[in-house]
């Protein structure tokens, strides 16, 4: 009986060590919708929330739309306006997904691990499936998750003359980096 209790204790302790939810409130998301005729529609958000469960492989991001910082005030106003992201009514971008090949990552061993992810991205209240390759870098207790992908603005109901006129890219590039502890 004592051995059984000892075994359960070891299992519980091991799980508590490795079944960790790692988080950050300083994930960086870069948005680049610039084109050959306009280099202004690009911005960066450095205060996104990110979380990863190293046991289940679930990942999540949450970014405040109004904290995307543009160099140009007019561009930032358009980005948040009701015709575009409508950030007063849809204040966050949300991604919830999973690492689909979790066995490719050894969270106990330092290294760089290419992975595949699948999930749902919510922008302006519209949900779209998103599958993208990503990189997991394990270094000691920290995990750095990074991914580059693009989205189609029309998929999220974002349309308008600047897009049709080539001033804003139809498929902006998104870069995500999160150091999770």
């Amino acid at each position, binding site marked *: 009986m004592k051995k059984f209790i000892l075994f359960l204790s070891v299992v519980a302790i091991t799980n508590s060590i490795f079944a960790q939810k790692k988080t950050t*409130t300083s994930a*960086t998301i870069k948005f680049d919708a610039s084109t050959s005729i306009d280099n*202004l529609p690009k911005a960066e958000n*450095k*205060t996104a929330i990110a979380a990863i469960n190293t046991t289940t492989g679930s990942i999540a991001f949450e970014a405040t739309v*109004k*904290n995307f910082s543009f160099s140009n005030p007019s561009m930032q106003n358009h980005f948040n306006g009701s015709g575009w992201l409508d950030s007063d009514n849809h204040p*966050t971008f*949300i991604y919830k997904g999973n690492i689909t090949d979790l066995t490719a990552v050894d969270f106990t061993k330092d290294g760089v691990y290419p992975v595949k992810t699948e999930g749902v991205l919510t922008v302006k209240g519209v949900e779209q499936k998103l599958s993208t390759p990503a990189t997991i870098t394990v270094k000691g207790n920290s995990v750095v998750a990074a991914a580059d992908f693009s989205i189609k603005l029309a998929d999220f109901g974002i349309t308008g003359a600047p897009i049709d006129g080539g001033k804003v890219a139809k498929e902006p590039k998104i870069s995500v980096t999160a150091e999770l502890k």
Partner: protein
Amino acid sequence: MTERVKKKRPWLKRILIAILVIIVILAGVYWYVATEKFSDTKDRKADYTVSAIDFIHEFEKDQKAANEKYKDKIITVNGTVSEIEAADTTMNIKMMDTVSKSIIIFAFQEQHLSEPKTVKVGDPVSIKGSFSAGIFSDILEIVKIDFKRSTLNKK
């Protein structure tokens, strides 16, 4: 016939000048808008000065009203550094309500990116920034209030 042309010419000239003036004005407006930059937050006057804990409580009490009150405002927040967190190649400063765990997080303006390195956890600080929004995070289950283009006020 020659007299008629002479009479019409002044009007044609005026129309051409007016079109030219409109084109120059539009080009000027476009140039101004396209090259406009956000001014240095350090040079801007704060619309509000608040204590970090009171500010957090305001959002915990009524998020919608607080977001409306502080929308697009420059705010000075006085509080204690609870964490200095890496954000890619830069650093953010956080202030936390240790009871509710809700936070204020400051991303710094490009010309002030080195300022978070001059403080440490536990330091009382005064930070001025451009308020973005306060949200309830479903991931962390706390209130998180974001600032961009922040700068440290002199100690």
